[in-house]
């Protein structure tokens, strides 16, 4: 997961950037995720990774980790101070470990 492996053309980046730039789109996404995903020219692999919250797969497609942390706040509905639980769920996915497993940080 080196920065050099990022795929700058990946459409998923647009989705996440639009979501953070547009509160209304975010509401629509929470209410009806599929209808928002339909508007983006995602590859089947991207779409599946998003639907399954599989950040490991998304990163392997060249998704930028910084946007990953932000996407997690939306997907795991945790955009309050620090957003610790969202990041923990993101980490469980990219480490391919269950939540609360050995990789989880202690509070």
């Amino acid at each position, binding site marked *: 997961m080196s920065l050099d492996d990022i795929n700058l053309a990946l459409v998923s980046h647009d989705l996440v950037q639009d979501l953070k*730039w547009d509160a209304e789109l975010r509401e629509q996404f929470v209410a009806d995720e599929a209808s928002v995903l339909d508007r983006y020219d995602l590859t089947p692999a991207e779409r599946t990774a998003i639907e399954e919250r599989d950040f490991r797969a998304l990163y392997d497609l060249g998704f930028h*980790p910084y946007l990953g942390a932000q996407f997690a706040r939306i997907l795991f509905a945790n955009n309050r101070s620090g957003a610790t639980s969202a990041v923990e769920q993101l980490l469980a996915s990219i*480490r391919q470990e269950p939540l609360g497993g050995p990789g989880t940080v202690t509070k």
Partner: protein
Amino acid sequence: MAQISLAVAASHAPGLIGMFDVAPEQSQRVVSSAYGELARQIREADLDVIIMIANDHMANNRIREYPDFVVGLAPEHRGPAEFFKDWLGCGEYAVPGRPDVGTEILNGLSRRGVRVTASRENLNFDDNVSVPVVKTQIESSGVALVPILQNVTVPPFPDQDRCYEIGRHLAEVIREDLPDDLRVGLFATGGMSHEPGGVRDFWIDEDFDRWFLGLLSNGDHDKVLREISVDRLEEAGSGGTGELLSWILVMGAIGERRCDVLGYTAWDQWRCGIGTVSWDMTPDPVGAKGGDR
């Protein structure tokens, strides 16, 4: 000939505001003392404008159209951007801009071979600008702001040598192109070690951070440029620790100067090593080795 009257650097992390009260007491104390000292220095330096070098977190441009430097030319800089308000847990702020100063920086750096872009609109600020503005009380100081957002995470971005060189160009712009007697503060913000969204998120490379601060207080810039490569920064936290390139840009602008470390603390829930420094910009500093004034 304008002059650089203040040069400081400090980390930003959303938790410094929203998760401040729940942090260990020792970490709270370090942060209060260090950022408080920066606030005091900003008030006392009698500045006209603060040029803030802050990394952009992909908040202003598509990742496939990503500029290395964006100068904010808005007449007023407001933040935080909507998505970040709850996450930061801070109120809104508005700081006057200096479009005239920003314009000189845009054109001056361009003429000196640095590809810079600029926006006349209010930029999207997340923790990058919001945390330093709020924690060092820039709004109430009345000092104007010119943000320069820097790319340190979408390759290829300028490395330590190029950032240092760009800092030298910025100093030249300040000296040669800005209004006489303008008192300028340079504020680098970013770092220290962290890996936002990466497999090592929550991990802080405390050894690296303390070693980096030690290098700075020794003040040997050649050594800093030799040791702090992009690879070394990535090792200490991919995509996050590289934010220290903003510190290196400011070092290029001021040359070798005595550097005070105002504080350092590492609490994993802040997900970032927190350090602050201030360089001695008095006209004839004790221990100055003839930097680029």
